[in-house]
């Protein structure tokens, strides 16, 4: 399906249209949550536990309350009992969940655990008061190492759960594949470990709660990827009718998954909203964000592959363990199982087994981050390169032999997932071609003779986008063609940089056949837009396209009816282009959209009988169950300085297949952003704790984000395989963070291969590299 609506033009779709968001953001006129200022507004600050685990013996708030400018200090005793229901919409009320006391009750479970909430006239005073809250902690032994958390001697993070194993899921057991591995020509196995790192958006979390006792209405300004989820969650939490709650999000400074779900800190603000007779603002500072907003990626797996004599994969096995901290959001067992199920990737893998486990530890809870299951690609692609070296097959050749070909689709993978409309082999070939892979290998050989270590690394992955289950599976649009003929399109939104405003304006302009200057969008306000799940799961492109197509169709039919009636033409002969409706073949017989609107709104009795007046419509699109698969290949070259361990990235190439592109700028921007986050994760970023669970990286001086000086030019190749969804679009937001880490790791490993090192632990820091070089067997 490639056309959006009957006779739809594609004047803007596919073009590098300038963003509508830019005008305000370039001039400092964006409205982020910390920019909201309401009369009488007060400021909140949390008191947080310095201990990874401790009993709370008592909290003395008297000194804090005595400080001038302090309005209130809340503890668990004040607010926790007001919780009516606490569950995230994607999971439902019946599912298993970690108990989440908004403020810590008798025990703190990670360093950064919120213990008290101060409300004061300014953030400055609130921080002064927070320092005066006297919490009597009795430190307790903490469980920090997730790999030993299941031992009998380990303390329990949540006593009520009875175990530090949150849950386990698996596919075929390993025993079912013993024969395959035993008889395979080659078996390669390693344990691959990834460090904890996190989404780290440039803007931390935050919200302003504004309750009016007079009207009983609660308005929440939030930094969020899903305004409607915030509203629903809050409604259930407080037992307040949903229609009395309004959530407004104008601009949010990045989310990447960390701002999809309401966490305990935000719950506390919602709970105090009705207790404070003033609006209350909480803005998370950077230290809090690195301490308490959530960790991701901390996991490892023992992985194994069996190959025949030609290097064809016979079976794969993964035993995966994931550190989920003390308060994972959401319940992480299902996401962990996706790692197992996806491990075979876009390859021809006849048999696969997997086990997955999610573990509690006394560290900050796990939260979603761009491609939360990406470890399956990290582990698989790194192991493939290790296998290639051991079998003395070029890594590109090994992939060529095993990647799914076009003629094999649809393909049901060994774990029951059905892949279709993907092009993994084609993307790999395009990337290799863009690099001139053979040429690089020659350069590499020459460099080695001169004592320089160059390397090339690649990864190919497939990922699910546009989830077709539960509340993710629908999206609505309301389009109002105003009496003047200008167009407003209302979408739930949740853009935190994903350009959904521009996307929606482009799609609408084409769907209606109007000039893009005539289209405006309103998003992010639950009072104004239809319900929507928000920006997650790389769903926004496809879902908004579907919603706009359905809604625009209604309006085009009405416009056609009006114009046909006026000119006594056939409805099928009416075309819309450039904000003008005309009779096909006679362009002089036309009406501007403004003229059509005039008729629709002001001359209702001249309309064809039975036609609804006005030009406003709403419709909701439902995507099919399952996912829309997307794939890409990443290819990276590097040089490693073996005297210091420094890695310099030389070229970085991405060949992606996101189907037709709505806006190539947006597509490339998403790929680049995700890839650089992945590069950061491979080389620089590390959310670290000492062995007692004390956080070591709570500022940007210790948690290292890559800068412009650390990142090479990213080159893009595009392969286009339409999906079955609207416009043929696929999601593209998450892939960069999936494909980049393994490509970078493989490049470093390839560079160091002549020195006999195997890279299986991340991050690949200079120190890490020198340690590997120091350890290598002679």
């Amino acid at each position: 399906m490639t056309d959006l609506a009957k006779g739809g033009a594609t004047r803007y779709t596919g073009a590098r249209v300038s963003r509508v968001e830019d005008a305000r953001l370039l001039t400092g006129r964006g409205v982020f949550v910390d920019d909201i200022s309401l009369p009488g507004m007060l400021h909140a600050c949390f008191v947080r536990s310095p201990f990874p685990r401790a009993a709370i013996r008592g909290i003395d708030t008297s000194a804090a309350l005595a400080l001038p400018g302090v309005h209130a200090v809340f503890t668990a005793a004040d607010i926790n009992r007001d919780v009516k229901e606490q569950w995230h919409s994607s999971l439902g009320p019946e599912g298993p969940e970690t108990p989440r006391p908004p403020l810590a009750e008798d025990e703190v479970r990670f360093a950064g655990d919120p213990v008290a909430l101060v409300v004061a006239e300014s953030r400055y005073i609130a921080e002064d008061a927070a320092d005066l809250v006297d919490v009597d902690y009795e430190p307790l032994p903490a469980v920090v190492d997730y790999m030993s958390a299941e031992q009998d001697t380990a303390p329990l993070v949540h006593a009520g759960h009875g175990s530090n194993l949150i849950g386990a899921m698996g596919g075929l057991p390993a025993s079912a594949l013993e024969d395959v591995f035993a008889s395979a020509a080659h078996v390669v196995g390693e344990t691959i470990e990834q460090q904890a790192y996190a989404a780290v958006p440039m803007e931390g979390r935050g919200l302003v709660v504004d309750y009016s006792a007079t009207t009983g209405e609660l308005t929440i300004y939030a930094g969020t990827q899903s305004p409607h989820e915030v509203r629903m969650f809050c409604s259930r939490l407080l037992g307040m009718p949903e229609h009395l709650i309004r959530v407004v999000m104008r601009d949010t400074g990045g989310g990447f998954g960390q701002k999809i779900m309401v966490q305990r800190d935000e719950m506390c603000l919602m709970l105090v909203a009705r207790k404070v007779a003033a609006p209350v603002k909480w803005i998370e500072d950077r230290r809090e964000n690195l301490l308490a907003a959530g960790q991701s990626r901390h996991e490892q797996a023992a992985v194994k592959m069996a190959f025949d004599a030609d290097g064809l994969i016979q079976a794969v096995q993964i035993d995966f363990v994931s550190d989920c901290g003390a308060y994972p959001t959401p319940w992480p067992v299902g996401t962990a199982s996706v790692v197992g199920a996806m491990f075979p990737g876009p390859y021809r893998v006849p048999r696969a087994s997997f086990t997955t486990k999610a573990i509690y530890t006394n560290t900050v809870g796990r939260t979603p981050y761009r491609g939360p299951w990406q470890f399956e690609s990290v582990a698989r692609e790194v192991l493939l390169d290790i296998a290639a070296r051991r079998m003395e097959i070029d890594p590109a050749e090994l992939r060529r032999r095993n990647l799914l070909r076009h003629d094999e689709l649809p393909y049901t993978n060994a774990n029951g997932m059905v892949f279709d409309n993907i092009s993994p082999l084609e993307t790999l070939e395009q990337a290799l071609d863009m690099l001139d892979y053979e040429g690089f290998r020659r350069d590499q050989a020459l460099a080695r003779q001169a004592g320089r270590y160059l390397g090339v690394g690649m990864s190919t992955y497939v990922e699910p986008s546009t989830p077709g289950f539960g509340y993710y599976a629908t999206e609505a649009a309301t389009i109002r063609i105003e009496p003047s003929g200008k167009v407003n399109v209302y979408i739930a939104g949740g853009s935190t940089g994903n350009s959904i405003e521009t996307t929606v304006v482009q799609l609408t302009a084409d769907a209606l056949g109007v000039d893009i200057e005539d289209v405006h969008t309103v998003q992010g306000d639950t009072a104004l837009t239809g319900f929507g799940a928000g920006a997650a799961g790389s769903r926004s492109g496809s879902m908004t396209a579907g919603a706009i197509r359905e809604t625009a169709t209604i309006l085009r039919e009405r416009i056609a009816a009006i114009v046909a009636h006026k000119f006594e033409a056939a409805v099928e002969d009416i075309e819309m282009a450039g904000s003008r409706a005309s009779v096909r073949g006679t362009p002089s017989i036309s009406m501007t959209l403004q003229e059509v609107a005039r008729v629709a709104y002001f001359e209702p009795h001249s309309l064809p009988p039975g036609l609804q007046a006005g030009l406003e419509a709403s419709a909701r699109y439902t995507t099919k169950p399952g996912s829309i698969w997307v794939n890409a290949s990443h290819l990276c070259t590097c040089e490693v300085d073996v005297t210091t361990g420094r890695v310099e990235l030389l070229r970085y190439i991405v060949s992606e297949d996101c189907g037709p592109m709505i806006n190539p700028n947006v597509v490339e921007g998403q790929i680049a952003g995700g890839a650089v986050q992945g590069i950061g994760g491979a080389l620089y970023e590390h959310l670290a704790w000492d062995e007692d669970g004390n956080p070591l990286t709570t500022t940007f001086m210790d948690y290292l984000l890559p800068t412009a000086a650390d990142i090479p030019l990213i080159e893009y190749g595009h392969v286009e395989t339409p999906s079955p969804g609207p416009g043929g679009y696929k999601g593209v937001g998450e892939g960069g963070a999936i494909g980049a880490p393994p490509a970078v790791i493989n490049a470093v490993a390839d560079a160091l291969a002549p020195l006999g090192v195997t890279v299986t632990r991340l991050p690949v820091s200079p120190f890490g590299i020198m340690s590997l070089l120091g350890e290598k067997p002679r």
Partner: protein
Amino acid sequence: MKPTQFDYHAPSTINEAALILAERGENAKVLAGGQSLIPMLALRLAVFEDLVDIGRIGELKGIERRNGSLWVGAGTTETAVGASAEVASAVPLLARATPLIGHFQIRNRGTLGGSIAHADPAAEYPAVALALDATMEAVSSRGPRSIAARDFFDGVWSTSLMPDELLAGVSFPVWAGRCGFAVEEFTRRHGDFAIAGAALGVELDGDDRILRCAIGLIGLGSTPERAVRAEAALVGQLVNDMDPEEVGRLAVANLESVPYDLHGSSEYRKQVGGVMVARAWVAASTEARRA
């Protein structure tokens, strides 16, 4: 992340500043560029009752030759130091260290005096001052005091300045003759604090013999260090006889309190330090030979 409250003082002369410091003692802290101090205040790692802002004291700014040395006022910004033709010709080591300090936005506020008084062992200016045997000129209500660089740094973020003393300026000896200078540091990212680095100056005689060599080590101790053994081994040798890697090895061989953290063990830092010394040696000795 907001600092605690403090009383703010903005003296316009050195004497005024000295009087305030004498009065407030340990409760007071000098505020120069603030690029190191303000983050600590924001994180509440440091709390002071009084901040004495020396940014308005004109006597503290300036760069001038005095008695064969180059005097740089403590309040001179790093940008001004880096842009100064006088510094480039008289104390090349200072000029070459400057672009490595943080980022240009930091250098626009950060001062030479602030960096030296803050005494971060991984910073560039302290190592340069130590390498060149600079003299720190302190002032208090009790009068001026000159402190040799080797007596100035006594621990991480710790100097021999008394609580009531203010660093007014630093005098850097000017090297003449066939000299070469280089600063090499290893950082995770451009502008980060050094994991290990070297600030090196070398002077040759007409026969290419090493007359003197000064090697200041960055990030390899609780203070900047002088690689005295390596320096001693170099003096009198022919420059071409020296193997750079050997120079590097010697420079780090006896270091005892090399820091360690997430980004590297002590051994790793030493190893990288040796590499940085070797590279600095190559660059500086090449320049000296051509002089």
